[in-house]
């Protein structure tokens, strides 16, 4: 029996192993069993080994080794490049990071760490504005309607581009109310995070309490979506065990591919 990816037997063995491991991992829901501990260790070992291999084949080989040693084209049309020996200097630099495990030499690890922090800090200032600038800009919203003739945004169906542009440029009452709610929420939440002074007025205290309430609503939404994610992952594993393995792969194996 040749083991190739197209081989139905190999596929079945692979899927059976997957199903056993899936069910074995789920035994932790009952209690921390030996099966679970064994599979946990196996997973970590496989992940570490695979990552190391892929790090070389997918990253270091092209980005570092290939640039350092260069390549002569074996066939016409193939890539060739002169080597650049200076890339070898990265090896001791990277090696210095591991001196962190030695009490005597761990000062050397500060060199690569310092370089990385320097690069990150250099990027940080520009990127902070790119990340939050548009959000701050978008938080400043108009609250006074420009068209009082109707409550909601009219339908754009079958209208000319000019008419659609006019609708887009107007602010209707429903949009203004939405914006007002948004601004009130924003200000309440921000007031909750003012720690430099005690709020003496009732208005500010209530605003801060409302901010806390609104934050709770936000956290509730995040918790809800977290549950949705966990359900999605469980459903996928159950689909793998019941449908892909038991109802599709097993009968295919019994039928002989």
């Amino acid at each position, binding site marked *: 029996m040749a083991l190739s990816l197209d081989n139905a037997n190999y596929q079945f063995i692979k899927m059976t192993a997957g199903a056993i491991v899936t069910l074995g991992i789920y035994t932790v829901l009952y209690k921390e069993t030996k099966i679970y501990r064994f599979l946990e260790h196996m997973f970590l070992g496989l992940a570490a080994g695979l990552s190391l291999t892929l790090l070389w084949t997918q990253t270091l080989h092209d980005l570092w080794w290939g640039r350092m040693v260069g390549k002569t084209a074996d066939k016409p049309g193939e890539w060739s490049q002169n080597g650049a020996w200076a890339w070898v200097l990265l090896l001791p630099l990277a090696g210095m990071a591991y001196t962190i495990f030695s009490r005597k030499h761990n000062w050397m690890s500060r060199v690569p760490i310092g370089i990385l922090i320097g690069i990150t800090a250099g990027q940080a200032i520009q990127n902070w504005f790119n990340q939050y600038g548009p959000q701050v800009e978008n938080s400043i919203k108009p609250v006074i309607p420009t068209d009082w003739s109707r409550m909601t945004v009219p339908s754009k169906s079958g209208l000319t581009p000019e008419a659609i542009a006019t609708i887009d440029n107007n602010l209707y009452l429903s949009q203004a109310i939405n914006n007002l709610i948004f601004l009130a929420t924003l200000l309440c939440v921000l007031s909750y995070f003012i720690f430099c002074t005690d709020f003496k007025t009732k208005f500010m205290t209530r605003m801060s309490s409302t901010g806390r309430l609104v934050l709770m609503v936000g956290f509730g939404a995040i918790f809800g979506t977290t549950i949705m994610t966990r359900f*999605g992952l469980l459903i996928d594993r159950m689909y793998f065990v019941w449908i892909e393995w038991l109802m599709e792969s097993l009968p295919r194996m019994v039928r002989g591919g």
Partner: protein
Amino acid sequence: MDDQMDKPKKSLGEKLQSVSRNALYLTLFGVVSISLVLSHWMGIQVPSQPQDCTKDAYKILRNIPEGQTMVIDTGTTNASRGESGCQMEATLRMMMREKVKFVLYTWVEPQCVEVAKSMIAKINVERRTAKPPQPEYREWDDYVILGFFPDGGTMLQTVASNIREAWGAKKEKDTAGNERGVFESPVLQNVRRVEDLKAYVPISPTNLMPTIVSRVGRKVPVISMCAGVMFPEQYNYYKSGQLKGLLNGLLGAVELESLMDKGIDADGVVGGKAAGAPLAASFPGQKNMARASDYYFAFCCAMALLLVTILVGNVGMMLERRGAR
């Protein structure tokens, strides 16, 4: 034995609030398993109403011109197949049908690329066995794989300023088996700046947005396909215009499949028949409702079970409080 006999009897309210954890897990497993098998046998399809953020994502992806290039930044592993896997498969199907070329890489985990490769292989089998058969998507001609970048932030910073410098060292084998630079491939040969890419699609359960939008967000339309748990945070980026489209976990993947099946007409109505060119056409007669739709009935059943257990717990609390009075 005596201790057990001395134990006070639990009231109904207390019993409802103290259902054992194992019983709840077992019920959840039962509900999910039965609903999955039923849905598979009977082909149950639960309808969905796509959100605006999913529709915006679909409009952009559906209207990328044939032969143009986009980026798929994957963070999908087998562990997140329930959400990101569904999104990835739907996106790959769309790109292959539209003949859009793509660049695939990761800076989340090295194994993500391997998982994406197996998904491409699976969809290629689908295409080969379809009636009528469709051509397979081929590495080098139709897509290139750049592998794993250990420092995504720095890589994207370089992509924003000089894309050829950032990816120039990456090599791929062409169709004749010769190793060549990726910018010689039909996928990237016309890409000189990041602005030449038609979309940047991160498909990942982890939160990549702060890194991506701050570096390339102003230069290329970013469409995030995130896990449900990340959706509330990433919605801020969508509302501020930093993301041009956003998919909410499994729900988003179901909506995307539904849009692939129905399309968006000229008036912006999903599945509508308005006159004029549709805003985003459907893919009629093809396998649109796939993995995410298969999961959706079980997902709805699991959510219903969650609501029932919350209700039971609250009724128990109410009964207990009434008894205490």
